[in-house]
């Protein structure tokens, strides 16, 4: 795709300055094709050592007059230049070989494009072909594992996007999400603070774009590249270019895929018999006087333990185990509660697109439809996409274009958290289902739904829950990118290369959330609930650009000047009520006649950004390349005195392979050294932070105000990151091995830090520019062609990164901040607490006695979790025994794709892993109150157990049980395997098509290794979706 785009680009630039070939003795004709047999339009055919040349036409045909002794030089960008002696041939057909690897690609760098070989910064690209190769619901998924240093999480919920993190996290309080730029327009977003003070990004993602409409995704990683976006570049920039019409024949493409998925559970639950025994032990240990040990049950005990009268249906099941008078747990049937909430998820995707154009007008249009029924009942996602793109060049001196991307999405979110009463789990229907007791049953003897199976009022029945709750989110988004460009070269050749361009990018989102919970819902308790929330976002970016490019001899100059203005406005309102009389109303009739509202609100947030930018590029003889930029940004959410700041960058590249002394080394195809420096900013703090408003309460019948819990900071300024990047790009052995290796260091200062402060001040938090962090990392991108024969090719693509970040300074210099869990020399994400020493076993009696003696009471018994006494005083206390246990940030992240091509068959396997970090899986409560996954727990008859002894409780049970939950989180996972088949060209043409591809994919087939077997460490849940996709790409 990329190549053909280039072909056209070059073709037209040459067409504009075309010269008529001089008359020669013979006319030679021929067709130039690429190695797939596709004709190459716009290829150069030149007679060697002359200026006589022609270009091929749309069908790759050329005609040139030449003498027999002439040598034709056939060249095309991205292809190996080939020389052919004319001799007496009248017709010469040439097949150009690709120049291999990816060094010739065009890369979008922000406010322009550059050839990849001329890049000075660190940029990775994902092209349409790679996006198409496996079906994805959104463009973010398409990038997974493709770019070293870009860590993209998985998100299982339909219609949502995984978390994305470029080169680790630098900022502590401000968010670390990258900036997205679509067709030149940065997407605006809003920072929002949750009740814990954590700042997150609202909006600004690219989930609304149909992945099939994407031509390329370019990720700017280092600051020398991202500084062009100044204040918004600190977390990396992801530039999305959508498909444009192409010169030539109109094509129609149809892509479709069907996916089926099921939930795979990694942590099986105890069956009824096993669980009943656990609860008996738990009751025994919490009150040995009243209950028998778990291995010596009595029916009288069981009646109390299992609330015989509260749920007779569950008790009837347990009684089956007592049928013979002696306990037999295998007689009790087990209810699999998850089966009531799960289903096979089916996703179908269709995209129909049309593309084509002439010299003066190019157009692209597409319509996409995605429908997903989730793996959980009641969840689903539907999205309609419409995209249209037109570029018009009516004269030599003026061109304009319009690009409009619209999407309409309906997300059925399943069980609503809004309106949830405190008894229901906030983790959604699947977790609620898993909490249900294995011996309890959903329906009583009369077929009525039991509200609290097992008789425990905190456990809610999930049977047919999807009938009783709905949370529907509808998003309509229209994003446009419009430009007009004056090409002064069209007026006078003296002004060649000088252009003025205006970009205008409006972005409008309308969002509606309607939630309704019937009184019978597991999240409610008798009364119904309805919520209606609407949200409207309008923003725009307006850029004025002056571009100038000039080549004088071996000197290439480029200048870009920018003035840019952005305004963002978000308006929201919501209302909610309980006791909806007519359940048919849902959220649609919240009128004064029907309900009394128990909550309503409206709000507006407005932000603005104003910028100037200048960039200079210089190249000498294609060998020495320089880029430098300077940007000024002013952001409204910072203090007026500090809101403007400057962001500089400079980067250099040296194409050593162009040097004479390397010309004779045949195995070296490309070698480039790069070094860059850049300063980027982060102002990702919510609006109005410099003067937070007074808190408001309604007490009794009066409206009252309170001082904001956050101490205002009227001097809030930019968080700035300075980054140095060193890279080498290489291609060797005929480009069989190519890639790049990068090393970077980054230093962030004036951290926007939300810190807890002693409440004695009257405040609990403040946001301030304090502290420093440092990070460094190594990234390797390696593309290898391991085996290549006529019919078979095995290639690998590896992206691997190693990263480390640490806090250098905090509010008071090099002082740890225990209160905020921040430690000098450690990464911002760490676990601090008591270290685990396993559990207390009978053989530890002597040691355990010392702890109990020191405390003067029994603080430990056998089977309790055993924390490490760091200072050896036989007391476990917060001041002396808590330590930093490890970092939660992965040190290594790797993605490996192996692709095997045999004739028209392509098999691709994608492996992804994160390694070297501590993950808090959570201890096991073992309180025997809700269901329990299968674990090896301590009892009097099983003292060599992994987990502590059970203790019946509504809460945690053993107070040190969390110490048993800190685990190494390393894993390596097969995210997907796909098998594709390109139908033979002959067959395809017979069908009246120009291309036909079919593929099959398996998603999440399994783990290669995982340090925690019962958790999918990728999704960080005990379950994830597994499924198959069947897809078809058709081109007419």
């Amino acid at each position, binding site marked *: 795709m990329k190549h053909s785009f280039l072909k056209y680009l070059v073709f037209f630039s040459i067409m504009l300055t075309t010269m008529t070939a001089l008359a020669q003795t013979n006319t030679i004709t021929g067709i130039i094709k690429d190695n797939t047999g596709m004709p190459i339009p716009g290829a150069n055919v030149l007679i060697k050592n002359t200026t006589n040349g022609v270009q091929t036409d749309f069908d790759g045909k050329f005609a040139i007059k030449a003498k027999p002794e002439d040598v034709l030089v056939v060249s095309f960008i991205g292809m190996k230049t080939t020389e052919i002696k004319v001799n007496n041939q009248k017709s010469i057909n040439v097949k150009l070989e690709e120049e291999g690897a990816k060094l010739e690609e065009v890369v979008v760098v922000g406010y322009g494009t550059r050839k990849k070989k001329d890049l000075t910064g660190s940029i990775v690209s994902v092209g349409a072909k790679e996006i198409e190769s496996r079906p994805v619901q959104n463009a973010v998924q398409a990038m997974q594992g493709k770019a070293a240093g870009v860590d993209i999480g998985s998100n299982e919920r339909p219609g949502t996007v995984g978390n994305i993190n470029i080169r680790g996290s630098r900022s502590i309080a401000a968010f670390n999400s990258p900036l997205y730029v679509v067709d030149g327009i940065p997407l605006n977003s809003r920072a929002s603070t949750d009740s814990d003070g954590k700042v997150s990004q609202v909006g600004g993602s690219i989930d609304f774009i149909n992945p099939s409409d994407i031509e390329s995704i370019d990720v700017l990683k280092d600051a020398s590249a991202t500084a062009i976006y100044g204040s918004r570049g600190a977390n990396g920039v992801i530039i999305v270019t959508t498909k444009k019409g192409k010169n030539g024949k109109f094509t129609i493409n149809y892509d479709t895929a069907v996916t089926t998925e099921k939930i795979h559970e990694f942590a099986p639950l105890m069956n009824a018999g096993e669980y009943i025994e656990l609860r008996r032990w738990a009751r025994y240990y919490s009150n040995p006087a009243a209950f028998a040990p778990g291995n010596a049950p009595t029916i009288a005990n069981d009646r109390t333990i299992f609330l015989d009268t509260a749920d007779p249906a569950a008790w009837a099941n347990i009684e089956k185990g007592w049928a013979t008078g002696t306990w037999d747990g295998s007689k009790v049937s087990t209810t699999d509660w998850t089966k009531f909430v799960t289903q096979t998820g089916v996703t179908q995707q269709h995209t129909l697109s049309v593309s084509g154009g002439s010299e003066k007008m190019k157009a692209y249009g597409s319509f996409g439809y995605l429908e997903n029924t989730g793996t959980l009942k009641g969840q689903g996602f539907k999205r309609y996409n419409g995209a249209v793109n037109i570029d018009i060049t009516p004269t030599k001196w003026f061109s304009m274009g319009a690009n409009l991307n619209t999407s309409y999405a309906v997300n059925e979110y399943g069980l609503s958290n809004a309106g949830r009463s405190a008894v229901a789990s906030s983790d959604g229907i699947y977790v609620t289902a898993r909490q249900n007791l294995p011996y309890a049953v959903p329906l009583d003897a009369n077929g009525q739904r039991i509200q609290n199976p097992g008789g425990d009022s905190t456990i809610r029945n999930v049977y047919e829950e999807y009938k009783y709750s709905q949370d529907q989110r509808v998003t309509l988004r229209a994003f446009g990118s419009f430009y007009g460009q004056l090409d002064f070269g069209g007026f006078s050749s003296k002004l060649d290369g000088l252009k003025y361009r205006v970009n205008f990018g409006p972005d409008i989102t309308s969002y509606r959330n309607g939630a309704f919970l019937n009184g019978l819902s597991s999240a409610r308790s008798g009364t119904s609930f309805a919520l209606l929330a609407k949200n409207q976002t309008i923003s725009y970016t307006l850029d004025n650009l002056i571009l100038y490019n000039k080549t004088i001899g071996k000197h290439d100059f480029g200048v870009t000047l920018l003035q840019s203005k952005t305004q963002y406005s978000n308006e929201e309102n919501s209302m909610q009520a309980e006791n909806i009389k007519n359940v048919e109303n849902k959220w649609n009739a919240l009128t004064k006649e029907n309900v009394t509202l128990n909550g309503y609100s409206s709000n507006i947030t407005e932000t603005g950004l104003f910028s100037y930018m200048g960039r200079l590029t210089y190249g000498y003889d294609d060998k020495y390349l320089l880029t430098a930029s300077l940007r000024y940004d002013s952001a409204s959410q910072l203090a007026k005195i500090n809101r403007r700041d400057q962001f500089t960058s400079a980067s250099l590249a040296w194409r050593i392979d162009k040097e004479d002394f390397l010309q004779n080394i045949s195995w070296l195809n490309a070698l480039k050294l790069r070094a860059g420096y850049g300063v980027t900013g982060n102002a990702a703090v919510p609006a109005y932070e410099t003067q937070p*408003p007074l808190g408001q309460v309604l007490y009794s019948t009066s409206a009252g105000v309170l001082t904001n819990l956050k101490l205002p900071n009227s001097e809030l300024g930019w968080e700035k990151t300075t980054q140095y990047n060193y890279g080498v790009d290489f291609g060797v052995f005929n480009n069989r091995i190519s890639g790049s290796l990068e090393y970077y260091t980054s230093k962030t200062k004036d951290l926007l830090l939300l810190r807890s402060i002693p409440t004695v001040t009257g405040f609990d938090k403040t946001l301030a520019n304090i502290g420093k962090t440092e990070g460094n990392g190594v990234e390797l991108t390696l593309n290898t062609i391991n085996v290549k024969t006529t019919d078979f090719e095995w290639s690998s693509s590896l992206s691997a990164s190693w990263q480390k970040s640490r806090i250098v300074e905090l509010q*008071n210099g090099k002082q740890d901040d225990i209160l905020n869990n921040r430690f000098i020399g450690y990464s911002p994400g760490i676990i601090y607490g008591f270290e685990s020493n396993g559990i207390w076993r009978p053989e530890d009696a002597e040691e355990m006695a010392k702890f109990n003696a020191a405390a003067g009471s029994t603080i430990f018994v056998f089977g309790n979790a055993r924390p490490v006494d760091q200072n050896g005083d036989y007391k476990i206390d917060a001041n002396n025994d808590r330590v930093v246990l490890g970092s939660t940030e992965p040190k290594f992240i790797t993605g490996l794709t192996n692709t095997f091509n045999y004739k028209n068959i392509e098999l691709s396997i994608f492996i992804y892993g994160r390694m070297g970090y501590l993950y808090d899986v959570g201890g096991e409560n073992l309180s025997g109150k809700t269901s329990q996954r299968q674990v090896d727990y301590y009892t009097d008859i099983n003292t060599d157990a992994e987990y502590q002894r059970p203790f019946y409780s509504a809460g*945690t049970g053993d107070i040190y049980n969390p110490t048993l939950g800190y685990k190494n989180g390393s894993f390596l996972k097969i995210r997907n395997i796909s098998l594709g088949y390109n139908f033979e060209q002959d067959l395809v043409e017979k069908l009246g098509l120009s291309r036909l591809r079919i593929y099959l994919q398996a998603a999440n087939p399994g783990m290669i290794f995982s340090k925690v077997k019962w958790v999918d460490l990728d999704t960080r849940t005990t379950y994830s979706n597994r499924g198959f996709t069947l897809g078809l790409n058709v081109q007419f």
Partner: protein
Amino acid sequence: MIIATLGLSSSCSEDFLDEKLTTGYNPGYLKTEEGIQALSVGTYYQVFALDMNREVPLTANESGTDEFHVGGDPSNGLWNSYASGFGSFVTVSNSNTVAANTNWDNLYIGIGNANQLIESATAIVSTNDAIKKIALGEGYFMRAYNYLKLVRQYGGVPLNLKTSNVVQLEFTRASVEDVLKQIIADFTQAYSLLSNTGGPNKITKDAAAHYLAKAYLTRASEINDAWNSATKSADLQQVVTLSDEVISRHALAPNYVNLWDFKAADGANEKLSELILSADFNSNQLTTGGNQQHLYFLSTYDQLPQMIRNTAGGRPFSRLAPTYFTYDIYDKVNDSRFWKSFQTKSIVNNRASGSIYVNGDLGIMYIMNSPSDTRFAKTRNDGTIVYAKTGKVIPSVFVAYAADNFGLMKDVRFPSLSKYMDGSRLDFNATKGSRDVILARSAETYLMAAEAKIRLAKLGTGSYSDALSYINTVRNRGAYKAGEDRAAYTDGSAAWTTAVQGGRASSFIAENSYYESNNITTPITTATNLTIASISALPAADLAVITKLGYSSDYDRMLCLVLNERTRELCGEFHRWEDLSRTKTLIARAKAYNPDASPNIKDFHNIRPIPQTFLDGIYTNGRPLTAAEKQAMQNPNY
């Protein structure tokens, strides 16, 4: 055209970057009279109402005392047991666990707002009494109110009397003496600035007098005996003078049940003359927070046969159950207060199909008998005891004293403290309650005066019997009146007026187990008399406690009586832990009566641990504290 317009319209002015907050008030609002009054309202919320939304009041003042122990749900069990997870961190059991710093943080945030209120009301150029006297007086009151809680819970704490504009990190603990001095000064200011209008939902002069008396009494209590000798006598005289003044204007409600007879939000029981100060709640679903105290003292009646959770019965969080100290301290024949504070009967509201019951039959009964009662073999009696009125057996009957000696503390069923029950909630799981919470009423003022008299007697001023007139006034209000129906019962459940809600009938019955418990068959309608005639003729229940705790001096016996009387009168009203800690009787009483606390509680538990979050967050000499310095700042042994 479009492009040209766009190009030109992009102005170079950066004015559009100036933020204008139009959706909230900025701090400049506090320079207006309206803003100061709004801040006063907000501070009322923070200081009086916020805590009532969660479990802070019960963990701070009821758990781990002689009155209550864990009632089945140990989400906050550590506050009762003082076990090893209780310290500068309180090990989190679940999201309902009250952290070690929750109360501390809420109190200091309240102080921050009170400081702002005092500063704003002082700074404004105004002669408006509503600002200069009332708002200012309220500011001083609320600051002192929170510091009084802090000093009673934690001992000496940092004193911060100014609003902060910059991040302050260097704090040290002031002495208990200095903190109390500040509290007394602030309450005195409030006393002189405020008038007596608007109570009990507004802070009045009498409220200031009541709490000023409480501050003096605190200073004169045992926990401060190491240094309070110089002020003790004068302080106690002040307690008597101030209490007398408050009592003169706040007559006791005629019947103890008047206080708990909640029929609707802002009803008659919330406007009684006895009330001095209440946290204000109402039925508006839109108010911030809400009173959730109705959740915590209830037994899980809904898991018993023939029963289902309902709005009148309440949502039983089952956090606290009474101890046998509480059960036995009442004279259950003559003192009506037990029967007006606890629910002992519920009716069937979920009859099982095919059973002999109809909704409305007696479903649960607690027999609160005496140890000498030999009628019952078993504590739990399922469907064996006949209800005289219907002749049907009662599905569940629990007996306080039965031959099996199992008792009401080993399982999760107990008579529920009914003082907070709220049948006006939206549904049976609704947590938002609309009842006011009584913070101060004159019955407590009487008992403070009585205690001061006892303490003065010990110092040689007056005699111990001087206390009796105060105590007897309170006791006799709790006696049965002539003609009173002793089986009659009511509580806030009765506010539930809808017959069937969410398909569920009510479990409330306007009847108690007085006759069944006391084994009296013929109804009595004579009046009772609870007067204690002389200090040598203390009631039997008090003598039992005196014996168990080994008291012999007149002072110890009389202080014991006052503390017992406080239980009878004020049980569950969030005073107990501080009263016991203040009088240094906490350890002995918890050991004697609270089986969960008994193995763990030690002398150092008389004050709470300083929260680790505070120790971790503060600095000294520009650096955080070392482990040793933190330990030194912590209360001993935590």
